[in-house]
């Protein structure tokens, strides 16, 4: 899937990095690597970033709420995506967690579970 515009121009990607900076006090030190992982995930699910976040939400009586169905769908897709990545557990976790970070900083609550011990 070819995205029609650069990833950085999507609202949800801007929200991701803005909120990341607000939370951690600095920009990620690997912005381009994170964008590359997100690009792979967009291709994996065949959706652009804004659509992914939109599908995790739903409108109820004029209020935006998290869609349990949508969130569950993407939680599962992230697991599949992570499993499809070649490399050790740490590398796979990094790829999956980059996408989780994108969702979390856009207000989509989800947890990865402990992946490294």
């Amino acid at each position, binding site marked *: 899937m070819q995205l029609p515009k650069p990833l950085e121009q999507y609202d949800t990607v801007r929200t991701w990095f803005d909120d990341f900076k607000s939370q*951690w*006090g600095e920009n990620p030190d690997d912005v381009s690597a994170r964008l590359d992982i997100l690009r792979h995930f967009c291709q994996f699910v065949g959706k652009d970033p804004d659509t992914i976040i939109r599908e995790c939400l739903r409108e109820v009586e004029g209020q935006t709420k998290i869609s349990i169905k949508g969130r569950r769908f993407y939680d599962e897709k992230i697991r599949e995506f992570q499993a499809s990545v070649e490399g050790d557990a740490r590398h796979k976790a990094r790829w999956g*967690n980059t996408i989780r970070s994108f969702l979390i900083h856009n207000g989509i*609550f989800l947890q990865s579970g402990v992946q490294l011990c």
Partner: protein
Amino acid sequence: MEFKEVVGRRRSIRFFEPHRPVEREKIQTILEAARLASCAVNANWLRAIVVERDKLPRETLDQLKTPVSAVNLELAPVHIYFYGDLGAVPRSRGSTLKELVDVGALNPSHGWSHKFVDDLVWPMILEPMMSSPIMQTQAVAADCGVAICQALLAAVDEGLGACLSAFSTGIAKQALAVPDDWLPIYCLLVGYPAESWQAGGQRPRPPFEELYFEGKYGTPFQRDQNVVESLKAANMIQAPAPLPGRREEVRELSRRFGLPE
């Protein structure tokens, strides 16, 4: 540890050392503390089932998680599932109150007698109260909360980290063979903290005067700064969150356990 410092050091610990076992005597101490808590009509509603995480089948552990408790449940080596036994008072029919009369805790000086319990307290107060699901739940939940708080503070006093957590009650009922009339309250997660005991500092609280009143609602209970200073000296009131370095600590822990940032 002094009591005031125990209160001051308590935090909800969310990063545990997952493979450091908790001594059995410390778990017993936690339960002993809960058992001695104040409880209305001496009902002793609280029940607990202690579970070592690693003795749970993996599938059960996964099913016990709620969306917000997955990481906590996985990291804590010991789970204490707390319940309120809704059958405690109906079974005793006031006998626990009469025990208090017998041991001199409730006395004629305050109007108490066996006959008062049998003729009035049980039939006119306790039995109707236990027939009302709302009143029953309020009473049981409040008193279990008091006992669980003592358990929580005992865990802190034992040098452990602890955090109250939600859990999937239906799964727990089946997996732990919970009786039908036990009301799920909380799961107390226990283990040695992987984060520093300060866990970033004391959590934000509303101003004292917004919470507590004197004489009537609207007249704030005046906070004496001398008392505040003495409580600081006793380590009950500690540095508020966020402490310097907290972000770095959380990021390091996230990377250690493979959690998102």
